[in-house]
């Protein structure tokens, strides 16, 4: 009675000054300091709690350049058992479809996986697509934007999906793919002891030769998405008024200004 859980994680740039490749319109990641996608920490926390409840193992899975190892080490330091990095030049330039395809092939290769968890979206690309795409490739149920998760048995789970204007309660059978919202939990901090131990673990690195993948469906070649243009929205800086005085005085002045502008 134990669960084999895969948590897919992504390293995202910490910088606010991102550069876009003028040809592919993809993010230029080299040289950027990376951090773990914040929502992925919620997915890891969810996995750790399920492991506490049911036992088993948690495998981190990521696709990206070798410096993504830092994010995988952080996940190991949070308490995950194992990590696999899918890294190859052939995987480069992948859109969400090609990424989902490679991830799903890696999950199949890991074998006997009960549950795949994602953060709700990455904070760099913001698509929320990879989790659902992986579920389609695996032909497993997908439960997205989960804010509550219960596991009355190892085979059956219930989840609340928190959507823009509704909540949806779902009961589902494993195996399944879930994407996690930050409302679900507060991720734990990596314990100092686990930090040390995370650097003693070996991260498996798989390339296209390690997986059963169709060369036409990976990387740029396997990516039908064409980004025509990427641009930063224009900053519409309006006039800013700073209200001075004590908080009481400032609030009084604010009310006067809102009323005089017919906003109240």
């Amino acid at each position, binding site marked *: 009675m134990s669960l084999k859980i895969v948590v897919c994680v992504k390293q995202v740039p910490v910088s606010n000054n991102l550069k876009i490749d003028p040809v592919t319109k993809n993010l230029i990641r080299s040289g950027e300091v990376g951090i773990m996608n914040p929502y992925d920490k919620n997915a890891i926390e969810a996995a750790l709690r399920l492991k506490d409840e049911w036992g088993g193992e948690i495998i981190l899975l990521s696709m990206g350049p070798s410096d993504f190892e830092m994010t995988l*080490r952080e996940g190991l330091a949070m308490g995950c058992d194992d990590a696999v990095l899918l890294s190859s030049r052939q995987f480069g330039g992948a859109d969400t479809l090609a990424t989902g395809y490679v991830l799903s092939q890696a999950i199949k290769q890991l074998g006997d996986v009960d549950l795949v968890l994602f953060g709700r979206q990455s904070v760099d690309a913001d698509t929320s697509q990879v989790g659902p795409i992986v579920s389609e490739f695996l032909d497993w149920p997908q439960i997205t934007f989960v804010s509550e998760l219960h596991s009355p048995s190892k085979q059956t789970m219930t989840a609340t999906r928190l959507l823009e204007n509704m909540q949806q309660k779902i009961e589902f059978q494993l195996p399944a793919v879930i994407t996690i919202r930050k409302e679900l939990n507060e991720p734990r*901090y990596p314990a*100092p002891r686990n930090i040390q131990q*995370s650097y003693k673990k070996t991260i498996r690195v798989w390339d296209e030769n390690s997986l059963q993948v169709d060369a036409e469906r990976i990387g740029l070649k396997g990516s039908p998405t064409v980004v025509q243009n990427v641009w930063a929205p224009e900053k519409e800086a309006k006039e800013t008024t700073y209200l001075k005085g004590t908080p009481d005085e400032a609030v009084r002045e604010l009310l006067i200004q809102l009323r005089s502008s017919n906003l109240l």
Partner: protein
Amino acid sequence: MSVNLTKPQMMLHQMVTDFADKKVKPFDMQIDKDRDYPKELWEGIVNTGFLGLTVPEEFGGAEFDAIASSQTVYDLAVRNASIAFTLEGHYKTVDQVIKYATPALKEKYLPQANHRIFGFSSTEPQGGSNIMGNTANAVKEGEKWILNGNKTMITNGGLAEVYCVLLKTSPNELSCFLVDEDMPGFKHGKREEFIGMNGTPVGEIFLENVVVTEDHLLGKLGQGVEIGDQAHYDARILMGAIAAGIAEHALTIAVDYAKQREAIDTPIIQLHSIQTKITEIAIAKENAQLLYQEAAKLKVEGKPYAKVATMAKSYGSRASVIAADHALQVLGGYGYSREYPVEHLIRDSRALQIAEGSLEKMMIEITKEVVKEREE
């Protein structure tokens, strides 16, 4: 930064910074006012594994070195000096158990150091730095030691559950014993009404015929002075880190305020008189940081570090008081107000000139080391 952090140290630093921003910083003033840590913060410290930071891996700890522990103490002190001071008291005591305890005692107590606070106890009511004037004692009866006496001014006194205690084993001999609060005859005394570092209790303990076995003796009989000195040297690296942390905290407050406070339609940071103070705070912080990092590096490299550790504490403690005082002046009336955090930085920093050896004792020790170096 004078030290290059390893990858695990860098991850630790990032974790501590994030923890400190979210779990410590919001409670900085509350800790000072309540003279205690919020339950959630304390649970976070224990459950995240801060207590086991330096405990060897074989005993369930993280086995980080002095570079990492001082960086951790600094990162916490930038947000609240008191929580850093509490960990300083714990880490320096654990260091002595690691170095001097018998294998059996390590086996029993080092796993406990991951979740129980340890404290080091040398001062008695009649004196601090003059430890040979102590009267608390240990008398051997058969295979056991009988411990008696009163110890005071213990960092974490009352909060700590396990103590390393310096006791007279003959008129001219001090020895160090490990004592557990669970032992019959052990009592906690009152907490000192100190003006700063308010989250950290400083208190006394009473030993009334506490019986311990031979293996509770740390090091050899009569090695107490050496162990006490060693605890001081280890502590002073961390005290330097707390001092640099307070200076950084003062710098942040002063700069943020000076940028937004206007005098005659100009932010006061444009004024030369304010820039002088901010510059002095910045230099004081940088120097304090370089000194404790150098001391930590020497310790990790296995080189003599007593002198530089003492300098880190001596210089740092003065630098942090100056930094806090300058920050108060930059904030003017707000700096003098209890509604702003600067005034407690002054009270907190003042403790660093007394604890782990007074400023005056630092001067004697540094001079002695400097003279010795020139005679060798």
